[in-house]
Structures are given as C-alpha cells and as structure tokens.
C-alpha cells in the first residue's frame, strides 16, 4: 500500500463528480427539457418525425447510451492518470462480503 496525497485523492473525487454532474445535466436536457417544450418543438421535422417525437422515441435513448459509454471510457482514462492499476484477476468474493 502506498499513501496518496490528500489533494490528489480530493482532485480525483472532484473530477469524477464534476463529470457525472455534466453527464446528468445532458441527460436531463434531452429528456425532461425536450418534453417540457414538446409542443414548441413539434413544428420542426427530423427524418420524417416531428422533433419532439423523434427525441422521445430515439434521440434521448441514443444520447443515454453514448453518455454511459463516454463515462466508462473517460473514467478508465482518469483511473489510469491517477495511477490505478486494475488487477487482471479480481475474484467475485473480493470486497467486504459477509459470510453467508
């Protein structure tokens, strides 16, 4: 075990939290915000759909999927940057599981 400087550990938490807030904000925009303004958006057409319908049926879901993959990818990069080595073999029973 090696000690991590408090500032480095805090930076890690802050960076991850900031990114999560950004992702969630994007998620809220493509779902709640679009629904809120659905009537106003319905005059715009996209690929044969009224825009509000397209966002509900496809746009929001696609955005969510992309956000999750971006998060997984970027988080791995951040972990690397902070020198975290993911062990190849971590068994299912690692962590503080209780005896059953």
């Amino acid at each position, binding site marked *: 075990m090696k000690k991590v400087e408090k500032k480095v550990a805090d930076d890690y*938490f802050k960076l991850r939290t900031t990114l999560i807030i950004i992702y969630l904000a994007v998620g809220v925009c493509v779902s*709640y915000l679009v629904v809120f303004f659905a009537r106003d958006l319905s005059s715009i057409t996209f690929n044969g759909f009224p825009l509000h319908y397209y966002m509900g049926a496809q746009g929001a879901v696609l955005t969510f999927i992309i956000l999750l993959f971006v998060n997984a990818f970027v988080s791995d990069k951040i972990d690397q940057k902070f020198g975290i080595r993911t062990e190849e073999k971590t068994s299912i029973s690692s962590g503080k599981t209780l005896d059953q």
Partner: protein
Amino acid sequence: MDSQFLVSFGLILATFGLYIGIALFNKAKQTSDFYVAGRSVPAVFNGMAIGADWMSAASFIGMAGTIMIMGYDGLAYIMGWTGGYLLLTFLLAPQLRKYGRYTVPEFIGDRYQSNAARLIAAVATIIISFTYSIGQLSGSGVVIGRLLEVDVAIGTMVGVVLIAFYSALGGMKGITWTQVAQYLVLIIAYLIPVIFMSLQLTSNPMPWLSYGQIVGELQELDQQLGITEYVVPFTEATKWQFLALMFTLMAGTAGLPHVIVRFYTVATMKAARWSGAWALLFIGLLYLSAPAYAAFSRFILMDQVAGSAINNLPAWTTAWVDTGQLSVADQNGDGVLQWAEIVISKDIVVMATPEIANLGIFVIGLMAAGAMAAALSTAGGLMISISAALSHDIYYRSINPNASEARRLAVGRWSIVIATVVAGLVALNPPGAITQIVAWAFALASGTFFPALLLGVWWKRSNGPGVIAGMVTGLSVSLAYIFAAKYGGFTILGIVDTGAGVFGATAAIIANIVVSLLTKEPTQKVQDEVIDLRYPEEMTYKDGEVWIKDGTEG
C-alpha cells in the same frame, strides 16, 4: 391441435431445454473450482444478463402496445426506463459494488447500522418484487392463453406453475449464463417481426430509419379520420403526468433490488461502469424498436383491417377474440368494421403483430418463445429477490441466526412457490394493464430504495433513524397516492397513479434529511466507509488518509 400450436410449443420447449442445459452445465463447472479460478462475469455478458433480467413481459409484450394506444404520451416509458440507467450507473452501482454486500436490504442494514432499517428494506423488497411479478404472470397469461387458445385467466394459471417451477429450480446457480441465452432469444424474437414489417411497408430492412415515413403517413390518416393525433403530445394526460411518470420510472429503475444485485456479480467498479453501458446498449436495441412496432401495427390496423367487411376479417382476429383481449363488433350495423369499433388490449399488440402482418407460423412461435424468455428471466430475478429477503434478511438474520444451510434453502424455496401462487391469484384478474402494474412497482421503488441508496452513498451524515423515516414515509406516500389516484380520483396537476413516485421520492428524501439532522450523527466508522466509496476499488480511505494498492501487497 393445429400446426401453429405445435410450432410455438416446440420452440418454447426447445428454448426451455437450452436454459436448463446451460444452468446444469455451469453448475458442473462451478464444482470444478469455477470461482477459485478467480474468473468473473465479463462486462459484455453481464450487460446481456442485466438486459434479460431487466426486460420483462412489460417491455416485451406491453410497451409497444402502450405506445400504439397512447401515441407520444407512451414514450414516457421509453425515456424513463432507459434514463434510469444513468442514475444507476453514475450514482449508485459502482459505489454499491465497492461496499460489497449480497442483497440491497443488507447494504441498508449495514450502512445505516440498523436492524429495523434492514427489516423495512426487506419488506419493501418483497412488496415491490411481488407487485412486479403480478405484471409478469399476467404477461405470461397472455402468451399462453393465445398459444392454447384459452382465456387469459387459464393461461395465467399455467404460467404460475411454470414460473414457480422454473424459479425454484433456476434460482440456484448459473443463472447469469441462462440469462445471456434468454437475452439472445428475446432480442432475436423481437427484432425479426419488426424488420420484416419494415420491409413489407417501406422496403427498407432498418425499421429504426424507416418508420419516420410511416409516422408521417399516420399523421395524415389521423387527420382524415378526425381522431386524436398519434404524435401530438399530452392528449392522454397532462404534461406534468408525463414528467412525473418519467421520473418515477427513472428513480424506480435505480432502486430495483433485483437489478442492483446483478452489479454485485462483477469484480470491480470499473466493470460495474462498463456493465451499465453494455446493458443499456442491449436494452436500447429493444426500446428503440418498440415505437417502430407501435407505428407499423397501428398503420396496418388503420390501413388494412379498419374498413374491411365485418364477415371478411383476417383469421388472426378470431384467435385473439377467443382470448378475450380483442373485440371487433360492428356497432353501427353497416357491415363494415370501423377504426373506432376495434377495441384492442395494450398487451396483445406485440404478440398479435406477426399475425397482423402475416409473417408465418415460425415467426409467431418465435415471438411466443421470446415473450416467455422475457417473463421467465425477470420473474426468476424477482423471485430470487423475494426469497433472499425472506430467507436471508428476515429469517436468517433476524429470526433464526442458527438456521442450517438446508433450512434456509427450504425457506427460500417455499417463499418462491407461495409468492408465485399468490401473485398468480391476483394476476387472474389484473388490476391494470401490464405496463401500469409494473409502473406501480417502480413508484414504490422510487419512494423507498432510491432515496435510501442515494443518500446512503452520497451523504455521510444520513443515519439509521433518518433512513427508517425516509423509507416508511416514501412507501406510505407512494402507496397512498396510487390508491387515492386510482380509486379516489385524487390528483395533483393531473398526475395519476403511475406518476406517484415523484411524491414518494420527494417525501422520502425530505424525511431522511430532516430526521437525520435532528438525531445523532453516524459513528466515525460508518462515515469513513461512506467517504471510502468516493474512491475506486484500488484506493482505501483510512483515518483521514487515502491509500492505493501499488502491487506490493503480494
């Protein structure tokens, strides 16, 4: 017995054989040091397993029908059920994975250091999973009813026997790989008909790209007939109901015990993040197709069935009329079936679609097998949650800590059988459409687990009395609102029973925060454990300092 019955039945039997075979195969491997070899479920396959666990009869059978009947307003289900994975993967799953317990009530009991909180969480797990399984049984009733051409109630009873047997047997081990197989069966079954319909109607094999054109034509048909327009928002309910329902489904997703448990099967927080991403990609395949189904089916019904002579209807209508889920009556006696005279249940749209589009008996059989895979895999996950809550969290940890392994297993098995039978009895006369019943389960989860887990992970000051107050308040408010809205006609801003979660979650969060602040703060040990969740698996927080593994631990 006609050939349709034989083909469907044969496909269902073949897929069941596959699932049982996989379960047995994995069991054999486990005895040969499967776990000791240190292998874990790879994130891609865990994503598929989460997908099968997640996509229930409501997603498979009910969702496209809900959208077909509700139009734009039905899309709240699509956005809510997928958006929940953002909350789950960003805010809860990796942290819960690091804390490392076997069940959600166990996490709540240990994080909040309260036996009472664990018991309340166990009871809430049972209520939520039970409500959810009513929807599953009601769904398998629709499938079996059509297959045997009997009333849905009889189909439901057959489903009860099947699911009780399957869960008690399959609830043992090797379920991950069984669910991977179930995912593949259900997604293939879902995609084939919609791809063929897309080819038939638009000559384009990509339904996701082609159905915009059909939606455009539907708009014109709607205007000619002068009926409620398909794409116009908020015709079925208010804007606030749409938003409340979407929130309920999102928060409920993040708090469903049987889904969270799947994140415990991976090894690290990193794997939990990737599992969440893969899971939503696999789920997205079905959820992006459901609105295409809805548009195509509605188009065929309006264009080809409505307007035909009443004594010259396609053969498939008779079979569905027999199940009691479809009514076609020439009310004005002009010999022609009008659009308004077709009354179709939300729950049969997907199952009837291959017949409506005349796709042949093999595809219809495949649909039946896929629907059973969806109902079975979710019911299996739910029944394991119920049985774990009863046998582990309540019986073993509170009533009889000296119980032998065999005795706990017996309690678990019997609780599965009893829960399935009781849920089946309720499902005989379901209190709502499948998606609606399932939405209630989500309203209860968003009132109880979502706030308890969210604050448990992100706010170290939250304590035992706080979470008890939160869960009890959230559960009561959600339940009270569902009953008041469904049976008493009480609504706020036009929000009906399915949107109850927004009130449950808000009340629970407020109660948790207020009571926590009024009572003693948690012990230093608990607060340290919560701070520890901020850092990845490889970092440990101890006495105000953070340590990282550097490979010297051996």
